[in-house]
């Protein structure tokens, strides 16, 4: 068991303490905990990794893959996942289940302003302030000089309330999203999951490289896989950042037709991402990949957040195709029995409301 070097001090302390005192931490629900136990595993600790990454915007003239950005976004995720793996390794775990890979992508400063603008205009309407009519009324619903008016209105309102000091206006209030604070084109990549250890077998469940496996399967899915004789070997992913140039988005004439170049671009990007995922799975010696999701992210490199459709026609858009799944290896046997039909008497609506 290697002593992790890359981890912050408090991570090392926490892991050491957890191992010493035989306490496990987990984000498993009660039924997940029981299923994981049933499958022959014990949770050993909540593990995480993070990476805050600056992704410089690079938009080419011609449509195509933005190789640098693709690599950057992949690298950022990889860093977070490697750190999580390191933590799990330090705990002596055989794997990590329920891995969640989340991105806090920093919003474009202009988009932040747009949000503030919207907050202000809602508030202003509510308080009954009237907007002065004039030539400056914007056509696109966005008012360049709104801040001066907003400050004036806010001060007047605070005066009306009899406040000696003027507090921060609602549109300048903190948000619950961390991305707000980072600045343009910066994102936090977080990987978090519960490390588990198999009872008995010494390291049998580790992957080819002797590292703990990672998987985004829930406790329920994990139990079912293990019962059926499969074993997860890794969390595999592939991505592709693609720039769709304006000429791809425009049809040559005023008629209904397929945008061939656009179709092709999306198709291409998706295939590239899936191909990369397959390569990763093959490198791990997997039989197959389960639970694959193909997500299309439109990151915030657009010029004008308030008028997306038309802006895209002029400046093109950047999309990321991101594919993830859990690579599995088929082992011997496994029997799951027949499923039982159940008419559930739980009211699904009540449950949703309570959550």
């Amino acid at each position: 068991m290697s002593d992790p070097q890359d981890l912050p001090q408090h991570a090392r302390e926490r892991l050491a303490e957890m191992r010493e005192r035989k306490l496990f931490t987990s984000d498993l629900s009660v039924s997940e905990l029981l299923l994981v136990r049933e499958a022959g595993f014990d949770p050993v600790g909540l593990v995480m990794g993070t990476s805050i990454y600056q992704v410089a915007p690079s938009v080419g003239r011609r449509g195509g893959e933005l190789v640098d950005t693709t690599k950057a976004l992949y690298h950022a995720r990889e860093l977070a996942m490697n750190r999580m793996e390191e933590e799990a390794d330090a705990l002596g775990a055989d794997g990590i289940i329920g891995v969640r890979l989340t991105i806090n992508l920093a919003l474009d400063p202009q988009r932040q302003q747009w949000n503030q603008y919207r907050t202000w205009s809602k508030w202003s309407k509510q308080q009954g302030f009237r907007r002065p009519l004039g030539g400056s009324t914007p056509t696109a619903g966005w008012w360049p000089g709104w801040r001066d008016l907003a400050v004036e209105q806010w001060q007047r309102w605070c005066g009306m309330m009899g406040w000696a000091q003027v507090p921060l206006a609602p549109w300048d209030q903190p948000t619950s999203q961390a991305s707000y604070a980072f600045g343009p084109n910066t994102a936090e990549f977080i990987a978090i999951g519960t490390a588990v250890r198999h009872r008995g077998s010494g390291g049998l469940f580790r992957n080819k490289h002797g590292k703990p496996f990672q998987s985004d399967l829930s406790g329920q899915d994990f139990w079912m896989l293990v019962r059926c004789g499969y074993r997860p070997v890794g969390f595999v992913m592939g991505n592709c950042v693609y720039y769709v140039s304006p000429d791809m988005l425009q049809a040559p004439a005023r008629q209904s037709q397929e945008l061939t170049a656009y179709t092709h671009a999306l198709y291409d990007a998706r295939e590239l991402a899936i191909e990369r995922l397959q390569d990763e799975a093959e490198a791990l010696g997997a039989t197959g990949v389960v639970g694959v999701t193909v997500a299309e992210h439109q990151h915030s490199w657009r010029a004008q957040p308030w008028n997306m459709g038309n802006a895209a026609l002029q400046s093109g858009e950047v999309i990321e195709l991101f594919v993830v799944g859990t690579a599995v290896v088929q082992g011997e046997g496994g029997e799951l029995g027949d499923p039982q039909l159940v008419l559930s008497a739980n009211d699904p609506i009540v449950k949703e409301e309570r959550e």
Partner: protein
Amino acid sequence: MTAALSELGVTEFLTLARVGFLPRGLVIGSCVFSAGTQYDWSVATAEIRTLSKSMEDARRIAIDDMRAQAHQLGAEGVVDVRLEIEHHLWRGARQVAKCVAVGTAVVFDRDHAPPHLREAPSLRLSNGHPFDSDLSGGDFVTLLAAGYRPVTVAMGNCVYGIDPRVLRQYRDRDDEIAPVTQAFFDARELAMERLQHDLFRRFPEKSADHPSGIVGMTVDEQVYGGSGASGPPIVEFRALGTAIAPLLSGDPRRAPTPPRPRLVVPLDR
């Protein structure tokens, strides 16, 4: 006896009632405290200890308040605990946080419990206080059948400041912002570590309630300040989970055979 308020849904209520637990009342603890103004906050990339401490104290006061109420009601424990924080800006740009802990106190009713559970020992902690957990009624019952009992809601937090100058150095580069990564990583770990420390302090290894694990742990974050508002970015990380311990030996609540998973196909939508 007054009518007992509870937030339980019908299914949850009946699930609890089946094993002899009845709601005893809604218990609420709260605390309003000042987190200072932005001038009290530093601009270094480091933990802001005063803020960490005051947030932690506020939560503790709220949840202790809730526990005391449950104790007064003679409850066996509290289920479904929720911990909410609201931030307000009050006059003079003072940041004020309101901390509320809400849960449903439950009692064990021997007369209505199934016969084999009538002699079951109490689930109260060894000092006679009720347990508390953020598990739902259903999860609570499953946990008991599997041979565990909830002990307490465990918490840890950490408020971290970020120097905005660090971010500026990384402009126009495809690169990891290592100092901020370290800061965030460290802050989350610190929150989780504090959760553990708090737990070990309250329930040392020799105590009867020494927890064996934590379920349903989450780490979330909230940001104040940053590029949109004035002042340096400040992030609060909070770790929360329910500590569990094995049931006392011979407790009939432990199912004779552990609950078996079964594959079902639900026919509703």
